[in-house]
Structures are given as C-alpha cells and as structure tokens.
C-alpha cells in the first residue's frame, strides 16, 4: 500500500509541476487575454489540485491530511471565482475575444491589449 501511495504521490507531484510550467508558458505565449486566463486557471486549479493531492498521499497524520484538504477546497473555491470575475470584468469593459476571421487568422474588433 505505502509503496503504491508513494509512487502515486510522486506521479501526481511531477504531473502538477509540469502543468505549472505549461501554464506559465501558455500565459506568455497565448495570443489574447481570455486564452491566457485559461492557461492561468489551469495552473490555479488543476496543477495546484494535483500537487495538493500528491502531498495528501504523503500526509503523516490525519490532521495534516485534513488541513491539506481544506486548502484544496479553498483553492478550488477561490481560483475559478477570481477567474470568472476577471473574465466578466474584461468583457464588460469591452475587451473582445479573438476569433478566427475570414482569412482564418485570429482577429478582433478592437486592438487586443499587449499585457494583462
């Protein structure tokens, strides 16, 4: 049991770490605000969730496990909410997502802003 748990835990940790890196790359490379937000929220929820799950498998006592679980719940509540609020605020202030145009190239009505 314990050896399986250890391997599973490390697998989750490594996978979570990789997702963090891919999320950051996405944050840098994606073309507009909304796609970048997608990358960021992957890091926020999936990667953090995996890392926390990996840690939970290694938790020495039930108390630690409980605390980690509460962190997970908190992260899963706040992360998507913040992402939702950001996206909504952006949409309200008139930032349009990029969509495939006539020539198949991504374009938008307004100039996408360079940074977030």
């Amino acid at each position, binding site marked *: 049991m314990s050896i399986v748990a250890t391997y599973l835990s490390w697998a989750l940790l490594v996978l979570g770490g990789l997702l963090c890196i891919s999320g950051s790359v996405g944050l840098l490379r994606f073309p507009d605000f909304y796609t970048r937000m997608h990358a960021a929220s992957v890091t926020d929820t999936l990667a953090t969730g995996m890392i926390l799950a990996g840690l939970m498998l290694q938790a020495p006592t039930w108390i630690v496990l409980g605390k980690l679980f509460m962190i997970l719940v*908190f992260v899963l*509540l*706040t992360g998507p*909410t913040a992402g*939702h*609020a950001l996206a*909504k605020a952006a949409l309200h202030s008139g930032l349009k997502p990029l969509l495939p145009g006539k020539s198949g190239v991504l374009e938008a009505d307004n100039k996408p802003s360079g*940074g977030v």
Partner: protein
Amino acid sequence: MESFVHVVILSMLVTTAIAIVRVKDLFAVTMLAGIYGLLSASFFVLMDAHDVAFTEAAVGAGISTLLVLTTLSMTGRFEKASVKPQTDYRPVLALVLVTVTGALLIYGTQDMPGFGTADAPVQTHVVPRYLNDSATEIGIPNVVASILASYRGYDTFGEVVVIFTAGIGVLAMIMSNTTKMPVVQTALMSDHVVLRIVSKMLIPLIMMFALYVQFHGEYGPGGGFQAGVIFASAFILYAMLFGLTAARKVVNNTLVQLLSALGVLLYGSVGVVAMINGGNFLDYNFLSDDPVAGQMLGILLVELGVGITVASVMIIIFFTFTARSQKEGEGD
C-alpha cells in the same frame, strides 16, 4: 536540495526587484511588489521563521498591495516620464550613493559568522535561555509567541501603539466628513452572482480561520497580528462586494475607532494590573497565584488586545481610503 531552493528563491527575488525598477506601469509595479512579499515569505519559511512568513504573506502580499491599489485608483496608473531628461543627474548620483552604501555593507559582512553556523554569538548568548527555559517559565510550546508576548512583551506593546498611531494618522489625514456619504455607488460587484455566493460562503470561514489563528498562536505559527489582519480581510471583502455603506452598517466608524482604542487599552491594562498586584509593568507572573497560569492568562489577553487593535485599524484604514476615493470620484 534545500540550498537549491534557497538559491532559486533568492534569484527570483533579485529578478522581481530589478523588474520593479524598470517597469513604468504602477499597477504592474504593485503586483510585482506583492510577488516580492510572497517570495520573501517563502524564503522565511525556508529559514524556519513560520510566524514571520505568515505575517509577511498577509502584509506584503495582502494588505499593502490592497492599499496601494486603492491609492492608484485615485492617483492614476502610470508613472510619468521625467520632464527634463538631459539635466537629470539623479540616477547617476543615486547609483554612486547606493554603490558606496552597498560596498560598505559587503565590507561589513566579511567578519560575520558564516550563514547557518550553530556556534555564532546569536545562537549562543541570549537565545538558549528562551529555548531551554520558556517551557517551564511560560509553559507554551511556541517560543516565538512567548518572547513576543512575555520576554519582550513591551516591544509588542510598542508595536500595537505603532499600528494605532498609523490608524490615527490616516484618520487625521484623509477622514471624510461622515455627514454626507455618497448615496449612489458605482461599480458595485454585488450583481456578480457567482462572486456574491462564493464570498458569502467564504466570509464566515475566513472569520473562523482568524479565530483559530488568534487562539492557536501559542502552539503554532499565528497570533494576534496575523489573526487581526485575516479578520479585517473578511470585512474588507464584504465592503468590496456590497459597498462601503452596507459594510458600515455592520461596523460603523465609531465602533471600529472605539475598538482600536480598546485593544491598546486591554494590552496596557494587563500591564497596569500586574503593577497593582505588586509586579513590574507587564509582569504576568503576578496576574495569578500560579506564575505559569499567570503567564498563560497574560499572553492570551495581550494577544487578544493585539488582534482587536490590528483588525480594527486595518478596517479603519481600508474604509477611510475607499471613502476618500468614492468622494473624489463624485467630484469629477
């Protein structure tokens, strides 16, 4: 492995600091400063300073970012380019000054005991007493809490007064006349259904967590200051979502001002009671017949005083800043 993490965090700190120098967009600068606070908090964890890390995360990444952002909403987001670029000799002068100061400091470090050495004077002179005897003298496992609240309790009293002074300063400087509050408020986030529901779930949890931090400080990281900041953040979240007027219905100005004074008074009166019972100022041994019980009681009470003052001053500061920005928005 640990030193690898160490070097990584230090280089991230340097990168962030350099970015702050170069970026002109103050919004980004504020965010970077928040990241700087969070990184240094991580570094503190690495240095075994969990209490400090907790506080730095709450202050450096939380409260101070929030305050700067509120100020930016009033003063504008971008740093202007200098008007007189050709005669601006200040960067050169500053660079010289900074280099000299830094060189002196590096010169000074050469005779310092190496990093992490166990026989350095800091580890052998005053500290052993705290580590060896605090369990019997004070009776709580968190040595940081026993030094903070008892051995050097007077410094902490000073710290509470500093926070109180800041609250008074902010009130004296930018308190709006409370008679006419703006009735119509713009840009309320209460029409965000998701936000509203999630926050309503979170606010009680945040408050419970604050209470946990407040009363668990003797056994693990935490204590009055951290708890106060967390407690205040629940109210700040409420005010951001439902507007200042609604938040003020829950805690009005008079009440928070009263509480901020009461926290300091609670701390001070613990000291005075010890004095009346025949001890020195803040000598908790005299609070009860049993010295250890007296210490426990004293620490509990003063931490409560710290928590009350910090929470109410943080609320005062945030509310005063927000009220000012809304008043200014009206003027436009």
